[in-house]
């Protein structure tokens, strides 16, 4: 009774939790399409729009996706057969165990098949499921260790998921091996099912089971006496054979039981069978209850996301559905790390240790930021987001079929809107003089001093500048400015002069520095060989490091330029 209550509670938690997480897809807003505050009514509307869009797309493509992507996972096979083997072993191993073992009361028994857990093929299939899952977990652990990116980025969630799967299977194997072995269980079964009062017959059965059926029961009679064994076999045929196939078919548990055989009586005294049963049952129930709150949720989210995506590309879907698709994408991620292996800017992670540069980690940061806009992960996410070059390889490779490119573009716009945009957004909130007054009090933190050419620190850089204004005269940005002094604060040759005078704080926030298009006209034309464009470039980088900490956060809620 208690066990049923525990199992049903776990099921309730799994169902309610999953519904809650699915509900969130319609609640949260990612991207610029729809900016109304989350409300039940808005969520209902977006749910209705999703249903409409999904039903309009028809069933053919989603069902095809279910078959191809979920049942056979051909999209994984296409990219990496080892990953496919790992994932298929985990997936079908668990399917076998859940359908034929965990839910046997609901699947096999109502079908009226000749079901008994100790009969074949059920016993064999259970062990097969077990070894599939264990192989999958072992491959996952190995792949994680062998890959430098995954090694650095594996998360608690990954380890938790693997540990749970392994614990479920290992406790099950131990339980079965103790059951094969246990003298106490043998005695109880004999009491219940062997209808004989003849001590001789019972002892013969014991001898037969001890010698041929792996039981750890102590035989009083000699095990090499053919007559006794024949009697034991007769008894076995009469009372046991209907429900028992040879335990050797439990190809995982049987060898374990052989190793434990010398301890058979002691294990019974410790009550290990009961302990293991509860351990196995509780891990399975916990696994079920954790489904919506762990990596396992991808079991639901990924196929749904794949089916919805099969309806067409993001830009072709109704605006109301786009945010839902993005939210689904966040949940469909299994943190497999394939995107980061193919990311064109992943190498930068070696120089700038911000995990949010890697798409597989950026999606996690985005998830946290979506839950809590004040989360400290925001600055990490912002830096990682704007390093992305939108090459689209992550989307091309994602085995869960998440439209990552669309997710990044949408979240970049969200970041800009909430004052987390790249430097050229916040630098315009003040003019050069205002920035200069603050910058003087904020010397450059040596920890933030990335590799630079060091041009600004080297007086020789400007030694030769004669203020001839050639740089200013060839500058196309100066040329198109109506009033360079008003629009640009300073001209290039004035910036060079400030550099000569070691007053570069005055130049950090100057629009000229920030509006430079790095066309290198100035540098090419400078008769004195001053590296004007490189200096402007360096100034911008210095400004980001020195001014960002004092930049007013959450300036102008709607930055029109951010949408450009």
């Amino acid at each position, binding site marked *: 009774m208690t066990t049923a209550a525990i199992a049903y509670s776990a099921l309730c938690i799994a169902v309610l939790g999953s519904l809650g997480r699915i509900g969130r897809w319609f609640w949260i807003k990612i991207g610029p399409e729809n900016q109304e505050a989350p409300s039940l009514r808005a969520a209902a509307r977006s749910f209705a729009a999703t249903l409409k869009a999904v039903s309009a797309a028809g069933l053919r493509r989603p069902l095809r996706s279910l078959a191809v992507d979920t049942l056979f996972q051909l999209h994984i096979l296409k990219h990496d057969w080892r990953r496919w083997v790992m994932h298929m072993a985990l997936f079908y191993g668990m399917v076998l165990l859940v359908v034929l073992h965990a839910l046997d009361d609901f699947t096999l028994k109502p079908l009226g098949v000749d079901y008994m857990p100790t009969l074949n093929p059920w016993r064999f299939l259970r062990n097969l499921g077990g070894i599939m899952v264990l192989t999958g977990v072992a491959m996952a652990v190995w792949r994680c260790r062998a890959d430098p990116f995954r090694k650095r980025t594996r998360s608690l969630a990954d380890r938790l998921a693997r540990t749970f799967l392994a614990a479920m299977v290992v406790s099950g194997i131990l339980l079965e091996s103790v059951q094969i072995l246990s003298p106490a269980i043998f005695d109880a079964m004999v009491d219940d099912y062997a209808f004989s009062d003849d001590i001789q017959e019972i002892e013969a059965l014991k001898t037969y089971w001890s010698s041929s059926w792996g039981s750890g029961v102590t035989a009083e009679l000699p095990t090499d006496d053919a007559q006794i064994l024949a009697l034991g076999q007769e008894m076995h045929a009469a009372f046991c054979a209907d429900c028992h196939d040879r335990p050797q078919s439990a190809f995982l548990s049987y060898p374990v039981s052989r190793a434990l055989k010398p301890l058979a009586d002691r294990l019974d005294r410790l009550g290990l069978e009961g302990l293991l049963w509860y351990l196995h049952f509780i891990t399975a129930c916990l696994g079920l209850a954790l489904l919506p709150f762990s990596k396992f949720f991808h079991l639901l989210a990924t196929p749904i996301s794949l089916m919805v995506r099969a309806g067409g590309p993001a830009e072709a879907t109704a605006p109301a559905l786009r945010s839902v698709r993005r939210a689904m994408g966040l949940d469909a991620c299994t943190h497999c790390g394939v995107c980061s292996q193919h990311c*064109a*800017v*992943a*190498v*930068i992670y*070696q*120089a*700038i240790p911000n995990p949010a540069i890697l798409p597989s980690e950026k999606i996690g940061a985005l998830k946290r930021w979506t839950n809590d806009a004040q989360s400290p992960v925001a600055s990490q996410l912002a830096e990682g987001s704007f*390093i*992305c*070059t*939108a*090459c*689209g*390889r992550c989307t091309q490779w994602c085995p869960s079929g998440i439209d990552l*490119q669309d997710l990044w573009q949408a979240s970049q716009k969200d970041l800009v809107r909430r004052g987390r945009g790249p430097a*050229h*957004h916040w630098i315009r909130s003040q003019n050069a003089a205002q920035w200069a007054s603050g910058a003087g009090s904020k010397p450059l933190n040596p920890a933030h001093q*990335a*590799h*630079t*050419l060091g041009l600004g620190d080297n007086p020789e850089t400007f030694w030769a500048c004669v203020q001839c204004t050639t740089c200013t005269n060839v500058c*196309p*940005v100066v040329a*198109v*400015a109506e009033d360079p002094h008003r629009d640009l604060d300073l001209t290039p040759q004035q910036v060079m002069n400030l550099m000569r005078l070691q007053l570069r704080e005055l130049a950090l926030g100057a629009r000229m520095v*920030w*509006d430079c*298009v*790095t*066309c*290198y*006209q100035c*540098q*090419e034309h400078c008769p004195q060989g001053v*590296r004007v*464009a*490189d200096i402007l*470039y360096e100034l911008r*980088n210095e400004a*980001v490091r020195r001014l960002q900490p004092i930049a007013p956060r959450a300036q102008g809620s709607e930055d029109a*330029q951010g949408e*450009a």
Partner: protein
Amino acid sequence: MQLAYYPGCSLQQSSALYDVQSRRIFSELGADLNEIEDWNCCGATSAGKVDDFMAVAMPARNIGIAEQAGFAEMVIPCAACYSRTLVAQQRMADDPALQTTINAELGRPVNGTLKVSSILEALAALIAQGALKDRVVHKLTGLHPVCYYGCMMTRFPCTVPVPDDVENPQGMETVLKALGIRATDWNYKTACCGASAVVNDPDTAHNLMAKIMKDAVARGANCFVVTCPMCQMNLDVQQDEFCRRHGIEERLPVFFITEIIGAAMAIAPSELQTDRHFVDGTTLLKELEQHDEQSQ
């Protein structure tokens, strides 16, 4: 002829058509472009702009991959990737200590033997070997292109071995000449399109592009020819907007050099995805082809 090929991020996504065209045209001209495996961003718009070490190390990694795969030459169609890679190679050559430091981090170290070629350099070499012989089907009489090089093919942060004149480059003109097309002379071939200012300072970018457009129109050009995907995208995608804001009536298609070669070789524009441009270029090419056929 086997050439290493570095597409870079732009050709992967926003200018994917340039990737399709480059592969196709090179194979038509008898050279195979082999995309180097596991390449990374050149750093032009990612870490290279904030970290000077990465600015050299990121292209260095790609150079190392191409060298270790046994290639002698790598073609880079994107002007930004080309510039970053060429500059990185030069800086390592100038500073052996820097090369040693970077090599220590690389699985496939750089030894400095790779020739980094722009698409024009590679095309010019193939054409010089006679790759275009008997391949030109359409003369495209009536095509009056202005060749637009922009900044990154012509001006570099340091002295690098570029085979073209930086003030009056002739690479595109040479290729067009081999096709029998005479480029229209003009003033803005190395002017700046505004690059990423389109995002952070669109007024300036539109101003710059309007100047370029006005000169091209005044010279009687009926299209731009470019090699830089950034210039192409800016002039193409923004054209309606900057022309409207600056009172320019005309619209000029912005072709990659590969599209013009394809059109001359009678490759259907749809196969080169010319129909994906914002400013329609297929109509002009079709008219010229028909004109050619009638005059024959």
